[in-house]
């Protein structure tokens, strides 16, 4: 019997809500599994782990260091990122490629850069410190003036990295800015600085707020620099404490989980804060018929500032890695006469684990892509089309991993793999699940932006011609979304091959990836071999970036040399979908 019209309407609603519920469970499961086990371990046996953490006399200092490092890095990033973005915005047309330099730390894997900074800023034998001590007036110093293995050192390295994120948001926002406002300020007699402070800066508030909270999230969860530098000087943050609790003998999993709770709760609170505060982002939108273009040209200071950042943030650490890689022993001296390729040969040809790790990194990245792309597509379509609270909830849950530092996700999966009946530990599946969880928000955001740009007309026309949902997806949407899908795939591959923090927690002997092998070499290998491995990781991921640009085109770049408004492949403050659709 054919169902009545009312029945069919009910069925449609059920399908819609059922699909949303299923997507909610899948994405919520991925994100919820590590969160759930973190809470369970921390609260197990009358919250034994939590009570011991709170009873630890050192916990106050650890929390203060965590917050201090994050605050220092974020403050540095906000100032530097905004100044660099404004400098890039005002560059003459032929120099706008310089605007890509501040993105270098995002395109390069973080761990090799952190290790490169150690070779530069080690207080005694760091290349930069040695060079500076050769200057007049500093010759009396026995070490320094910089010390990577200190709180200011970690703030500096963290700040340089986070600057890229703030730059990304601010530059993207500047590209959307109506230049007539700046022209009007200039016509009213305001100089560039006054125009920036009185006109531009207030309009950048959403970008600064979003960039600042994103940087704060990353700053609170920063792991690589505190792990590599902190041990020597006894500097602990919550994430490194958590890692050490899982890697000591005997491991203390309840305490590790408890130490992750403050970061987890704060991260989720930041995420909620972002969504709440930026709901009214429309207030800051300016529009112009003239199209975005720089209002004025920057002076040489802007060019040199951008170039200096590129040199300090990327070129110098890579150069340091290169010199150490060809030195027989790292001594702080640069003596080309002694350079050798022996360590390169050892790493590339004698160490089977390195070749395995490269293969694993690429294989897990590809597997992650195969899972993430369809999942993110379904989620994006759901969030884009459905007008239900459930779809809004899916959007929220799909972006939850952004509020959880990768190392915490890794710890959560480690806890889940040792406590749950799921045979996850030491399997490639564990790593792929972690990567999928981390990458879903990025892929969803990219595809959501592409769907929004596509508009509803093509699919509505196909529907009017009688095409079903599957046919519409296969013949209309997917072909039109191909560039976005290719870009998302490339981005996932790049980010997955960069991954280190979460991998360190869930890897086993058979699932080593490039980042974990690099960490092991730093911990118990030789410095030159560590440098070779770091460069190998940069090279492999560099190929990934090149492939990403080839597949995704220049549109994948978050900030274009020409500063045309483009979809940013990281979450940006977009209007809440339900609200936006209601308005439309």
């Amino acid at each position, binding site marked *: *019997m054919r*169902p*009545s019209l009312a029945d069919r309407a*009910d*069925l449609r609603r*059920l399908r819609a809500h*059922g699909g949303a*519920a*299923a997507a909610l*469970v899948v994405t919520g*499961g991925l994100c919820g*599994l590590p969160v*759930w*086990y973190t809470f*369970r*371990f921390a609260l*197990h046996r009358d919250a034994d782990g939590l009570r011991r953490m709170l009873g630890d006399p*050192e916990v106050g200092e650890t929390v203060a260091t965590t917050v201090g490092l994050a605050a220092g890095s974020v403050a540095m990033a906000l100032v530097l990122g905004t100044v660099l973005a404004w400098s890039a915005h005002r560059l003459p047309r032929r120099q706008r490629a310089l605007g890509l330099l501040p993105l270098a730390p995002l395109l390069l894997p973080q761990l090799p850069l952190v290790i490169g900074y150690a070779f530069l800023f080690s207080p005694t*034998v760091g290349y930069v410190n040695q060079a500076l001590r050769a200057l007049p007036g500093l010759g009396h110093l*026995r070490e320094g003036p910089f010390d990577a*293995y200190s709180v200011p050192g970690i703030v500096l390295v963290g700040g340089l990295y986070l600057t890229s994120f703030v730059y990304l948001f601010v530059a993207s926002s500047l590209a959307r800015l109506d230049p007539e406002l700046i022209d009007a300020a200039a016509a009213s007699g305001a100089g560039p600085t006054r125009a920036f402070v009185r006109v531009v800066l207030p309009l950048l508030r959403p970008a600064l707020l979003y960039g600042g909270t994103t940087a704060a999230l990353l700053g609170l969860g920063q792991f690589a620099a505190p792990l590599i530098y902190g*041990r*020597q000087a*006894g500097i602990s943050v919550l994430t490194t404490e958590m890692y*050490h609790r*899982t*890697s*000591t*003998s*005997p*491991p*203390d*999993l*309840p305490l590790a989980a408890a130490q992750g709770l403050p970061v987890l709760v704060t991260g989720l609170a930041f995420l909620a804060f972002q969504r709440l505060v930026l709901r009214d982002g429309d207030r800051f939108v300016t529009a112009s018929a003239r199209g975005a273009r720089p209002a004025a040209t920057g002076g040489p200071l802007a060019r040199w500032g951008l170039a200096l950042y590129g040199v300090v943030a990327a070129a110098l650490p890579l150069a340091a890695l290169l010199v150490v890689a060809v030195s027989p*022993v*790292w*001594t*702080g001296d640069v003596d080309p006469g002694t350079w050798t390729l022996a360590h390169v040969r050892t790493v590339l040809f004698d160490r089977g684990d390195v070749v395995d790790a490269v293969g694993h990194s690429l294989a897990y990245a590809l597997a992650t892509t195969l899972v993430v792309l369809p999942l993110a597509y379904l989620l994006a379509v759901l969030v884009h089309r459905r007008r239900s609270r459930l779809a809004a909830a899916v959007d929220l849950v799909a972006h939850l991993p952004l509020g959880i530092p990768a190392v915490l996700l890794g710890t959560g999966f*480690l*806890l889940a*793999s*040792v*406590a*749950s*009946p799921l*045979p*996850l*530990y*030491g*399997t490639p599946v564990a790593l792929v699940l972690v990567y999928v969880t981390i990458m879903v928000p990025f892929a969803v955001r990219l595809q959501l932006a592409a769907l929004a740009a596509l508009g509803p007309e093509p699919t509505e026309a196909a529907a009017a011609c009688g095409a079903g949902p599957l046919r519409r997806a296969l013949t209309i949407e997917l072909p039109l979304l191909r560039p976005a899908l290719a870009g998302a795939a490339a981005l996932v591959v790049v980010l997955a091959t960069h991954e280190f923090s979460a991998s360190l927690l869930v890897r*086993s*002997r*058979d699932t080593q990836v490039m980042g974990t092998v690099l960490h*092991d070499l*730093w*911990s*118990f*290998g*030789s*410095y030159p071999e560590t440098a070779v491995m770091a460069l190998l990781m940069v090279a492999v991921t560099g190929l990934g970036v090149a492939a990403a640009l080839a597949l995704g085109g220049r549109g994948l770049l978050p900030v274009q040399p020409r500063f045309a408004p483009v979809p940013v492949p990281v979450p940006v403050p977009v209007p809440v979908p339900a609200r936006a659709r209601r308005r439309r």
Partner: protein
Amino acid sequence: MTSLAFRRRLARRTRWAATFLLLAAAGTTGCGDDLDGASSAADGRAGGSGGDCAYPDGEWSEIEARASREGVVRWYSTLAPALNDRLVAAFARAYPDIGVEVTRATSPDLTRRIDAEAQGGARSADLAVHTDQAWQQAHGTTFFAPLVGPDVTDPDHDVLSADRTSTLVALAVIGYGWNTSVIDDPPSSFEDLADPAYEGLVGLYDYEAPPVAASFAIWSEQYGDDFLAALADQDPRFYASGSALAQAVAAGEVGISAYITPALVPEGAPVEIAYPVEPLANAYVANVLCSADDPAAAQVLANWLLTPEAQEVAAQDAASVLGPDAGVDAPFSLDDVRVTDVTSYRDSELAALRRSLDATFAR
């Protein structure tokens, strides 16, 4: 009004949805998980999974033949990387049909990995060589297989534990070393490391590993209570492993290491090593895991480590575990060194010792 067919379809869909949600919820809420088991097995003090531990028995020649068929032994080792390489090369000469896959890790990392792999059911080591004898004793015979090789069980060697699952295979004699490019006036004794002239130049091995923590306690006993405080006043830098510390001394990042062995020093580095009057020696023990995929090959490698041929390699800069009668040429004998004994430390005592060191070194 809702038709009967629709209600059936709705009921069917609802059942499917409910099943799916239930399964997903079971996955996420940890239905059937075991936090107590995870904590206790992961902390390595609760023993293995119980039951008999199968291990190769019979004539040694048969075990060797079976080992050749197995092909590859998976070895987790805490020994210095260079020493691992030399041992693997020598083993390949003795047993060309048996390959060795070495995974290098610090002792805490190695034991944690093995515990987590056992708990998670992942493939783990066949043979483990580490310094955490307390961990080994806690696991005992349900986790580790009895060792059956003729050299291991030779009563003259006296290296086998009472439960036959563990054997001493190497002794690393701990010295102190300095970078000759950085230190013009080297220390004349171990106590000199506390000399204020070396302030800011001393590097130490992080005391997370039980034998290292025990070494700090022995130094306090040997050189007086004030020695560690004086060492702390030097503003020392700590490193995660002996390898990292040796690399730092070789680079000149720190001038002096209080904890170094020649096997860790990179070739050609400007580093000199000296030894205290009664140097400490870390004891490395070997265990074959019950879960070994290649148990015969693991037994053969464990046994080979006790042969004079292997001890010549292992004791090149250290002490042989076989005693003087074995004729192994080594710079130290067992009588010259004080072996750091971590079996006397319970977990709580070890934690208390670490806390005390944290307070001394303000970490």
